[in-house]
């Protein structure tokens, strides 16, 4: 039996740049930064006092009583999934729930719930701990809530691979449809951990930017002045669909999810492999899986988080795997790093770049690193035809995921 083609028929997001996909995409093309100061009292003691907060708070979208039972990461996964589901037009399509699956992950999960309830435990005792604590903090919570929202009965899955989570969740969705287990998969990632403990932890690793007096200039992939990533929060969700299924119902198709490559480094728990070996293999596998030539990939939305080491390793990996022709960008320069949601949001940016024939800019790239010998779209968006593009996502633990999207 021929392998099923998989297409993208719905998109949803809530991000530091906008409360939906359209506003986020507009802001990206305009080169706007979603990073701002952390004005909370707790931030004063931290070395890092900047982050990329959601442009639209979940309390503006979901009702108060529902929000009481949701971790913030769950609330925004629901918001993004509702948008994607409506966008795909599947609500009244007669889709069999047993042919519908969910694959939504988070890098860190319900950490803010855990910490808030621990405060209550310490201050008021165990009886005051919320009975909603466990479903709010469990790592599969966002996936399970999205499954409830759309009525998915073919399985609900929660991938966890740190900052590669969103991309790996999409890759799992591809596998599920190819295996014949479902016709539609709601897939993506979510993250909401702007809280002193995760920030202190990342800051202790010296992984975060401390450019506290210039928040909008802090995330600057490949710039010589980069000093770490900026934490962002948000969710991105795609509706993946078997191509024949989408065609049969006359669905609007954004792009084809043509291939995926997943590898692991087996090298270090947090350091990327010194030659980017795992990243090179992931990109190479993704292109092969898509059945195209490496020269067909004309654009890459890079993982590039604005860390001193990782950004340039990725350049080397892209050169080794694809050559020197792809035009690349790093949208984290505007959104900050959404951790487990990054791969999903950046897949959306990659898909829209293909659809609109325009690449959003890498802002703040004022003084490019000497070894930056690939063509980066700096400062301003660039129009060009994009028949095929690639999105990278790498995560602590040595996870490497590359996804290939092509024109439908």
């Amino acid at each position, binding site marked *: 039996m021929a392998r099923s083609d998989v297409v993208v028929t719905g998109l949803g997001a809530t991000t530091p740049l906008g409360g939906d996909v359209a506003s986020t995409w507009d802001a990206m093309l305009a080169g706007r930064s979603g990073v701002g100061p952390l004005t909370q009292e707790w931030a004063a003691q931290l070395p890092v006092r900047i982050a990329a907060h959601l442009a639209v708070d979940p309390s503006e979208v979901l*009702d*108060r*009583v529902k929000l*009481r*039972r949701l971790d913030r990461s769950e609330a925004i996964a629901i918001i993004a999934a509702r948008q994607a589901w409506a966008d795909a037009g599947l609500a009244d399509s007669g889709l069999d729930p047993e042919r519908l699956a969910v694959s939504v992950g988070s890098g860190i999960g319900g950490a803010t719930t855990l910490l808030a309830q621990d405060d209550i435990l310490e201050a008021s005792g165990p*009886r*005051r701990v*919320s*009975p*909603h604590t466990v479903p709010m903090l469990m790592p599969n919570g966002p996936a399970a809530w999205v499954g409830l929202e759309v009525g998915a009965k073919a399985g609900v899955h929660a991938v966890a691979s740190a900052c590669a989570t969103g991309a790996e969740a999409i890759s799992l969705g591809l596998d599920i449809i190819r295996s014949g287990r479902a016709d539609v998969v709601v897939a993506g990632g979510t993250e909401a951990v702007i809280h002193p403990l995760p920030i202190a932890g990342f800051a202790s690793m010296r992984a975060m930017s401390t450019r506290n007096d210039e928040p909008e200039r802090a995330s600057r992939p490949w710039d010589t002045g980069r000093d770490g990533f900026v934490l962002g929060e948000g969710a991105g969700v795609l509706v993946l669909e078997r191509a024949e299924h989408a065609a049969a119902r006359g669905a609007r198709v954004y792009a084809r999810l043509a291939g995926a490559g997943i590898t692991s480094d087996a090298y270090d728990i947090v350091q990327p492999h010194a030659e980017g070996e795992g990243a090179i293999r992931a990109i190479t596998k993704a292109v092969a899986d898509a059945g195209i030539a490496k020269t067909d990939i004309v654009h890459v939305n890079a993982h590039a988080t604005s860390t001193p080491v990782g950004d340039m390793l990725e350049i080397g990996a892209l050169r080794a795997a694809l050559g020197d022709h792809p035009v690349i960008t790093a949208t984290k320069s505007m959104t900050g790093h959404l951790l487990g949601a990054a791969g999903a949001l950046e897949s959306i940016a990659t898909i829209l770049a293909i659809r609109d024939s325009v690449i959003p800019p890498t802002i703040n790239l004022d003084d490019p690193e000497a070894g930056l010998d690939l063509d980066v779209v700096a400062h301003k968006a660039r129009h060009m035809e994009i028949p095929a593009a690639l999105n990278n996502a790498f995560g602590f633990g040595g996870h490497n995921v590359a996804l290939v999207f092509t024109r439908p």
Partner: protein
Amino acid sequence: MTRDEITAGLAEILEEVAGVNPDDVAEGKSFTDDLDVDSLSMVEVVVAAEEKFGVKIPDNEVQNLKTVGDAVSYIEAQA
């Protein structure tokens, strides 16, 4: 505290915890069947009521509190 005052206090809690319209709260109403309060929300209602009315409601009593009136009677007897 009168039964009406206790009912009004429970209505406040039910609105906060479960989004129940205070106008729907009356002694004859069942928490689960009429007011749509699920088991986890009921736990929150009980803990909030203990604090509000200064009473103890042990877990083995909660299963006997089927209606708002049952809860009012229990709190009235304890307070």
